[in-house]
């Protein structure tokens, strides 16, 4: 019963603040409409500059092959390396291919010539994928060369590539389900914790502490409004994703909401732990910033956990958002069900118990 009055109070305070409701609405909009465009590692448009020092039929043929491939845009075809380098420095080009002088002559006489690929390492992924493609093109070129000369250089074979779940290789489809994680981290973890700490700092919590309000009721009154909002905003995100990108999960919403409940519990547990230890907002902010950094960077949100070195993977093992992100992607893209993600459910369940037990133990109404 007491809870009712406390929750009523939270909602009044939230709505009175002209600022918070607006932020709460802006949040999903930005996450769904802006982030996917920024958080993209799309490497499909690799710009290439070709420095052709030979200018022969054969060098032209190789250049055409590169320019004609679907992976590359030819930005410059020149015989001047300086100019190509300038393109790279200005960000117009990602990769330089140098065809040496006497390229054609060498192939005809000594059967061998070397080209130089220089990629702009500032975008490492583009650089490595681009040079990989170029090497494949060079191999094709060799095979053609052999065929033309009547020598079979390689066993003929053909490969067809099928990209399952995301045939258009759209990076946004990969990011959108994961970005929704941030809503739960922010709304169900950080905001209630900050709210509690701010009552501590202003002193209103003292007044509440001398009333018969018990621990659980007070904490629940802080959490429930944010839980509700978390789910409402998550739902708004699903609707926006469907409207704007025509993107709906292949799997069931039941799985998504089930994992979201577990994840919400974990995050609010962590938020409570922080609020128990922090005396001032500034302190809690630092702790949160620290956690946020680990949460976001080591969860596979941006870069694959499996590519990390072993020690980092060990840390990532204890990183709850990772399991949520995994499940979201699995359900959205692959149509994964609870069984497919049982591992993630178990891990988050364990985290939920651990963090909330810790939060309970560290909470002191009496100082």
């Amino acid at each position: 019963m007491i809870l009712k009055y406390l929750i009523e109070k939270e909602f009044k305070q939230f709505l009175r603040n002209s600022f918070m409701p607006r932020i709460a609405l802006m949040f999903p909009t930005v996450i769904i409409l802006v982030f996917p465009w920024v958080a993209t590692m799309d490497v499909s448009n690799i710009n290439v500059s070709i420095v052709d020092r030979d200018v022969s039929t054969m060098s032209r043929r190789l250049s055409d092959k590169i320019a004609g491939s679907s992976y590359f845009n030819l930005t410059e075809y020149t015989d001047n390396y300086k100019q190509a380098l300038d393109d790279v420095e200005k960000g117009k080009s990602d990769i330089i291919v140098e065809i040496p002088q006497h390229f054609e002559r060498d192939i005809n006489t000594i059967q061998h010539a070397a080209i130089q690929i220089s990629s702009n390492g500032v975008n490492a992924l583009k650089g490595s994928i681009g040079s990989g493609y170029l090497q494949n093109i060079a191999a094709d070129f060799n095979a053609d060369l052999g065929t033309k000369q009547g020598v079979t250089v390689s066993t003929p074979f053909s490969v067809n590539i099928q990209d399952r779940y995301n045939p258009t290789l759209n990076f946004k489809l990969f990011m959108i389900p994961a970005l929704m994680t941030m809503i739960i981290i922010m709304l169900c973890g950080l905001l209630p914790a900050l709210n509690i700490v701010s009552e501590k700092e202003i002193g209103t919590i003292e007044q509440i502490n001398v009333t018969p309000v018990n621990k659980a009721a007070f904490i629940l009154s802080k959490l429930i409004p944010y839980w509700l909002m978390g789910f409402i905003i998550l739902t708004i995100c699903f609707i926006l994703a469907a409207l704007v990108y025509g993107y709906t999960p292949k799997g069931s919403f039941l799985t998504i909401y089930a994992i979201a409940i577990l994840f919400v519990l974990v995050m609010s547990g962590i938020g409570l732990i922080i609020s128990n230890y922090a005396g001032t907002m500034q302190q809690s902010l630092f702790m949160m910033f620290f956690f946020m950094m680990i949460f976001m960077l080591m969860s596979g949100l941006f870069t694959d956990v499996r590519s990390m070195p072993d020690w980092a993977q060990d840390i990532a093992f204890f990183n709850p958002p990772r399991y949520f992100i995994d499940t979201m992607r699995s359900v959205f893209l692959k149509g994964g069900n609870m069984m497919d993600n049982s591992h993630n459910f178990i891990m988050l369940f364990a985290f939920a118990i651990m963090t909330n037990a810790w939060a309970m133990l560290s909470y002191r109404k009496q100082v």
Partner: protein
Amino acid sequence: MKTLLSLIIKEFKLIFRDRWTIMILIGMPIVQIALFGFAITTEIRNINFAVLAPQHNETVRKLVERIDANTYFTFVGYIDQTKDIDQAFRKEKADVVLAFKSDVGQQEASSNGIQLQIVTDASNPNTAKTESMYLMGIMKDYFSKANIGAAGVTSSVRILYNPQLKSTYNFVPGIMGLLLLLICAMMTSIAIVREKEVGTMELLLVSPTRPIFVILAKMAPYLTLSIINYITILVLSVFVLQIPIVGSLFWLSVISIIYVFLALAIGLFISTVMSTQVSAMIVSMATLLFPTILLSGMIYPLENSPVILQYVSCIFPGRWYISAVRKIMIEGLPLHYVLTEINVLILMSVIMITLSLKNFKHRLE
């Protein structure tokens, strides 16, 4: 001057008494460098591949052996039926499946050769692209070497600016831009708003100290901390990550000082507008933190964003600072390449200072 000094000393004592805050503030750049320098990599490794082969003949086995020998790939087993591919992907047992047709034997003898299919789990498009690219490379190599020795064009790869191909070169400027902004703008704004919220601001303002002194004293410790961080980051990146400062250290520091100045002005401005710490924090996060992380090229290259967002990014100071740092520190370009950045930062500082002073006076009356 004396009052200012004693106020500053008071603020320093306050902050340094709080061990947690100091630990996190000093430790932040170290952790970030460790994460970005060693943990976060866009390189794709540990690829699990499975093979769908109705007929395990010599060719199949040899090719599997060859791919397994590659450092990127690990063979996880054979799959019997096409429909099991989906299961393997969903349970995350395999990332890519190499599928042979049931008549591999006949195909080999025919003139068209072997027909293969690469099926990727393309949830992550880049992983999928890389996987099929690597596989193609290995197979091309395998099938050509299977016949005669190498001939024709060979290629060697060289990486400009970033020989180790780590994402390192992108994130050091990003971390600098982020931390300096975070500490100077976000922390000062919260520190000042806190006084307002707790009610001690009134006390300070009615005391004989000039209000601007109060504010300056609040900023001093954060200024010091950000200089410590600046030095830490540079030392770590030179000695631990082995990223040399190619350009001029002097100009790098000058630009950083302008940036810190701007950050302090922004912090002051936020604190004059906001009345609670929570709102000051959310505003700083929304206008400073996220844009700096996302538009700095720390993780995602800015040029991948749509043009509109690239224009939007121009209003965030972090973008200009990071671009200047990148040019001077990593590409070693001379000063005239970063004049635009410097001018924009100075212009922004002037605007912010004017706005916040105006606001500040207004609030006092």
